[in-house]
């Protein structure tokens, strides 16, 4: 089981941990919903029976790749830490891909053992955030998965996930699961129904793109101070307009794409100009249009 737990540790509200949360630029409501749902679950579930609340202590973050779902989930414990008695929250990260086994019956058993037995032991009595990244690999939509194409194990593994969530909902109110997925249609309906909230993490709009560019440049300016002026330039809005439609990860990389356009900026990143950024944004815009065209043609 240990190999399926990719990280397990205690988190407090240190600047490094808080930075995970602030680095992700999403509408503020997304972060508030996630934080408030987790606080509410830990506030109410120990006191009120499951039969009343139907709260499973599960939140699903869904949306396009690169929008910061996993980073938000990782940043959540530091957001909760100031509000728990010990000021520390355990963070447990699960790799669902590691649970699926080619051996008949093993996937179900591994899922059950990990989620219903091993994770509660790891957490003990501490408040804990358990991250199920790319959960679609273990909670496959049974209605979509044909028995001809998918081994019965896939169906059984989904059953095991649901059973484990039900078990933990009643027995372990200190556990709060955050599942992330790029494909909600691939997720089992019963899994989504167990989510206390399914929160869309959208692609960044133009303002958010500008903010991501600005944050990236400001952070880089700590090492290359000449970039500070560029970071605060009003011309960044025009670059952001061209980059609209990119995910947050690609927006960050856009700065480095721009730096790679000239050997001078590789030597000294402070030499980066608005023209470089605009060129990189235009190229990214073209790539995006081509990708959309290809996807359209494929359909």
């Amino acid at each position, binding site marked *: *089981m240990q190999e399926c737990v990719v990280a397990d540790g205690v988190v407090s509200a240190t600047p490094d941990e808080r930075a995970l949360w602030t680095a992700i630029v999403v509408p503020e409501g997304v972060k508030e919903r996630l934080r408030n749902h987790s*606080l509410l679950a*830990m*506030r109410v579930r*120990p006191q009120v029976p499951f039969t009343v609340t139907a709260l499973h202590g599960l939140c699903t973050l869904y949306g396009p790749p690169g929008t910061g779902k996993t980073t938000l989930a990782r940043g959540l414990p530091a957001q909760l830490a*100031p*509000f*728990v*008695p010990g000021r520390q929250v355990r963070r447990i990260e699960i790799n669902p891909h590691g649970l699926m086994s080619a051996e008949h*019956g093993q996937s*179900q*058993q591994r899922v*059950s*053992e990990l989620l219903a*037995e*091993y994770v*509660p*032991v790891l957490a003990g*009595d501490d*408040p804990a955030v358990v991250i199920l990244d790319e959960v679609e690999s273990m909670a496959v939509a049974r209605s979509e998965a044909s028995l001809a194409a998918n081994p019965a194990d896939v169906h059984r593994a989904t059953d095991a996930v649901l059973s484990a969530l039900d078990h933990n909902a*009643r*027995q*372990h*109110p*200190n556990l709060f699961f955050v599942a992330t997925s790029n494909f909600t249609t691939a997720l089992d309906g019963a899994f989504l129904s167990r989510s206390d909230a399914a929160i869309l993490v959208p692609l960044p709009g133009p303002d958010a793109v500008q903010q991501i560019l600005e944050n990236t440049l400001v952070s880089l300016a700590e090492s290359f101070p000449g970039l500070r002026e560029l970071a605060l330039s009003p011309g960044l809005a025009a670059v952001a307009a061209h980059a609209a439609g990119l995910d947050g990860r690609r927006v960050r990389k856009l700065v480095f794409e721009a730096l790679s356009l000239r050997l001078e900026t590789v030597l000294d990143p402070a030499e980066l100009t608005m023209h470089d950024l605009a060129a990189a944004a235009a190229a990214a815009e073209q790539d995006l249009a081509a990708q959309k065209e290809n996807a359209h043609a494929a359909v």
Partner: protein
Amino acid sequence: MLRYRTIAAAPVRSASATWQVITGLVTDTIATAAALSRSEAEQAMSVAAPAGRMLVAGGHLDRHPLTLIAGQVHCEITTTSGTAALTAEENLNPVPGVASAETFTIYLPSPDPLGAVVSAAVAGHARLSGATPPAEPQATASSAPLIDLAALRKEVTGR
């Protein structure tokens, strides 16, 4: 922490082989505890073996579990027989949660007509018991609050 394990008995295994599998599960689990000894668990299961084989052969473990209590873990081990045994999915991995246990007891069920046999077995080792296992502590009912309401109130009023 209440845990369950089901072991396939006849016709998949003989009573003796089934008891061996149960013994392996119990001793592997106890071996994960730093403060406990595998050999002590093996000795206990060896002393219990004559009664254990009868409990399996008579199908009693299908209905009345053998219970291993180690630290916070209450693990109920049952068997399944007949057609169900053919398709049973077993989990023979050590039961998690025993690592910090400092003591353990193996509770054997005492169904009629094996009461005397079980009593004789449990008298042979201090880690065996023929009594009804204590109820699992209800962790959630009396657990401490997870949220510091004063800190949360401060955050709300400080906005």
